[in-house]
C-alpha cells in the first residue's frame, strides 16, 4: 500500500499536465479521475483473477490456466449470445454471466479433479490445461473475434452518474470480489482449511481436514474468478477472442505474490492480491506517464516485482523480529 501511495505521489508530481480537449482546463496527467479509474479498471481484470489465484497459492498450489479459462469463458459466452440473437438486456446479462461463470467453474473443477485424482503437481496439470483450454477456445471460435451484445457493454461501461467516459463498474466488481474473497478466507471454515492445507498438509490431514475436497474447491474458486473476469473483460471491451488474456497468468501470479502470497503456501490475502494487481498496473502506467522508453517495460516490471517481493519479505522479517524482541522484554 505504501509503495502504491509513494508511486502515486511520484506520478502526480512528475506527470506534467495537459489541456483537456473538451474543456480546455489544465489537467494533471496522472492525478485526474479518468486516469485513476482507468488504472483501477486495467487492474480489475487481473485483480479479480488474482483473488482466485491467491486462494490456490495459499493452499500450496498454482493455477497457470487462468488466462486460458478467461479466453474460453469469454468466447463461449460471446458465441452463445450471438447464436441466441436478440434478447432483452436483462436476459442477455443473466445468460452471459451464467455461461462465463459456468465455464470457469467447470474448468476449475476439472483442474481440481485432475490434481487430486491423478496426484500430479498442479503446475503440470494447469500447464497442460492452459494449452488445452485455449485450444478449445481457438477451435470453437475459429479464431474469430466475436462481438458481444451491446447490453453487456452498457452494463460494464455504465458511468453511474460519474460523468462521460468514466466507467467505475469493473473497479466496483474488483472491490466486491476482494471483499468476498477476504470474508471467505478469514471468516469461514473453508477459508481456514485452505490456510491449514497450504501451511502444513500433513498436519491438516491428521486433523481431519478433507484435503482433496479443499484442493478441488480452491481450483473451482480460481476458475470462477477467471470466468467472472472474462465476463467483465468481454463486456467492457465489447468482444471476445481465443487470444484474450494470453500470458496474463503470469501477471495474475505476480499480483498474488507481490501482494504477499507465499508460493510455498499458507500465506496470502485477497486484499494483497488486489494491491499487487494495482501495483503492477501502476508500474506499467508509470513507464508511460514518466515518458520512459516503452522498450524497457518488461525489464522494469520484472525488476519491480523482485524488489517489491524482497521489500515485503524484509518488512515481514523486521516485524517478526520486532515482535519477538517485544515479547522477550515482556
Amino acid at each position, binding site marked *: *500500500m*505504501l509503495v*502504491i*501511495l509513494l508511486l*502515486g*505521489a511520484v506520478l*502526480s*508530481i*512528475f*506527470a*506534467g*499536465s*495537459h*489541456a*483537456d*480537449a*473538451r474543456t480546455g*482546463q*489544465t*489537467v*494533471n*496527467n*496522472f*492525478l*485526474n*479521475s*479518468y*486516469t*485513476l*479509474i*482507468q488504472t483501477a479498471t*486495467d487492474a480489475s481484470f487481473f485483480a479479480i483473477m488474482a483473488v482466485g489465484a491467491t486462494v490456490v497459492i495459499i493452499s500450496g498450489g498454482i493455477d497457470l490456466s487462468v488466462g486460458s479459462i478467461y479466453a474460453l469463458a469469454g468466447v463461449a459466452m460471446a458465441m452463445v449470445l450471438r447464436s441466441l440473437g436478440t434478447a432483452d438486456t436483462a436476459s442477455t446479462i443473466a445468460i452471459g454471466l451464467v455461461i462465463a461463470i459456468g465455464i470457469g467453474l467447470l474448468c476449475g473443477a476439472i483442474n481440481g479433479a485432475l490434481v487430486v485424482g491423478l496426484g500430479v503437481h498442479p503446475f503440470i496439470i494447469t500447464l497442460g490445461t492452459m494449452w488445452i483450454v485455449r485450444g478449445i477456445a*481457438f477451435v470453437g471460435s475459429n*479464431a474469430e*473475434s*466475436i*462481438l458481444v451484445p451491446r447490453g453487456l457493454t452498457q452494463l460494464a*461501461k455504465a458511468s453511474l452518474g*460519474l460523468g*462521460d*467516459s468514466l466507467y467505475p463498474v469493473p473497479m466496483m466488481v474488483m472491490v466486491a470480489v476482494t471483499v468476498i474473497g477476504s470474508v471467505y478466507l478469514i471468516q469461514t471454515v473453508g477459508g481456514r482449511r485452505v490456510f491449514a492445507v497450504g501451511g502444513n498438509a500433513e498436519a491438516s490431514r491428521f486433523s481431519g481436514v478433507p484435503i482433496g475436497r479443499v484442493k478441488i474447491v480452491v481450483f473451482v474458486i480460481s476458475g470462477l474468478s477467471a470466468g467472472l473476469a472474462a465476463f467483465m*473483460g468481454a463486456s*467492457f*471491451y*465489447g*468482444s471476445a*477472442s*481465443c*487470444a484474450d*488474456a*494470453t*500470458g496474463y497468468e503470469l501477471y495474475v501470479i505476480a499480483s498474488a505474490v507481490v501482494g504477499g502470497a507465499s508460493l510455498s503456501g499458507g500465506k496470502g490475502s485477497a486484499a494483497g492480491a488486489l494491491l499487487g494487481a494495482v501495483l503492477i498496473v501502476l508500474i506499467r*502506467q508509470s513507464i*508511460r*506517464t514518466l515518458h520512459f522508453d*516503452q*522498450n524497457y*517495460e*518488461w525489464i522494469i516490471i520484472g525488476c519491480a516485482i523482485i524488489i517489491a517481493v524482497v521489500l515485503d519479505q524484509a518488512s515481514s522479517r523486521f*516485524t517478526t523480529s520486532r515482535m519477538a524482541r517485544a515479547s522477550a522484554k515482556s
Partner: protein
Amino acid sequence: MRDRVHRSALLTAALALFLTACNSQAPPATQQAPAAKPGLKVALIAKSSTNPVFLSARTGAEAAAKELTQKHNVPVEIAWLTPPTEDGQIQAQRIAQAVNEGANAVLISCSDAGKVTGAINDAVARGVPVMTFDSDAPESQRFAFYGVDDIKTGQMVMEELAAQMGEAGSIAILAGNQNAPNLRKRVEGVKQAAAKYPKIKIVDTFYHIETPQDAAAEVVRVQNAYPQIQGWAMIGGWPLFTQTLLDLNPKKVKIVAVDGLPAELAYVEKGIAPVLLAQPTYLWGYESVKRIFDKVQLKQDVPKIIPMELVKVTKDNLGTWARQLKEWGFTDVPDSYLSMK
C-alpha cells in the same frame, strides 16, 4: 494496534488521493507542474513493438513530426505507446491512457478491431480524433484509415505465386495472427485468387505468433510435415526477417510475401522469394501523421479511406528499393544491395 492505525492512515491517504482527483479536473498539483506547450501530440499505437514493420512506421511518423514542426512552427510530438506483444485489450487501455495524458490524436493499427472499437469511440467522444493504419476498425468512429486493400493484397500474392509456379502445385498460406482482421482478409484474397487456378492446391492456412522466429519455425515445421509444398503465399513477411529459410532450395520452393524490409532482400537475391509485395511501412507513420496534422491543425477534410499502393520488389529493382529503404532511415540495408541497379 499501532499497525492498524498505520494501515488506516495509509488507506485514508489513498482514499484522499483518489477523491481529490475525482472531485477536481484541475487539482492543486497541476498548478505546480508546467502546462504542456500548445502543439500536436500524436499517440502512435502499433500492433507490436517487436515487429520491424512497425518500427519503420515509427521512424516515418517521427520524420513527419520533425518536418511539420519545422514547416508550421507547431511542435509535433509522437508518443510511442505500442505494446510489446499483440493484445487488443492492452491497445484499448493505451488509447484511454493516451487521452488521459493529453494526446491530441491517436494513430493505431488494430490487433483486434472488436476490442478497440469502444476505446476509439470513447476517445472521439472526449474530443480526440483517431486514425487507423494497416489494420482498420471500420465500425468505429475513426476519421480515416490508411493502408492497403487487404483482399486485393491477398489476390496479388496468389497471382504472383501462381506465375512463379507455372500455375500448378501445392501451396501453403502463412497467415500470422488469426485475430487480426486485415490478415484474415488477405487470406480470403489468396483463397479467392487461388480458385482461378485449378492446378493449384492449398494444403492449409497456418497461423502463428507474429515474431520472426515463431514464423520461421512454423514454416520449417510445415515444410517438414508437407514435403509436397512447392509454394508459400505469405501474407506478411515475418519468417523472412530471419535467415532460417535461406537454406530452402529455390528450384523446389517459391515464396511470395508481403513486406520488403532489409532482412528480406537476401531472399529476393537468391530467388527463394522472387517477388516481394512491399508495403511502404515507413509511410504508415509518415503519411498518417501528415493527415492527422491536416485534420487537427489545419482543419482540412481527410478522405475516410486512403489507399496505400504495394511496391513489387524483384531482382530487377532490388537496388532501387534498397536505396529507398536506406533513405527512409533503415540502418541495416546491406551495402551490396545499395550498389545494385
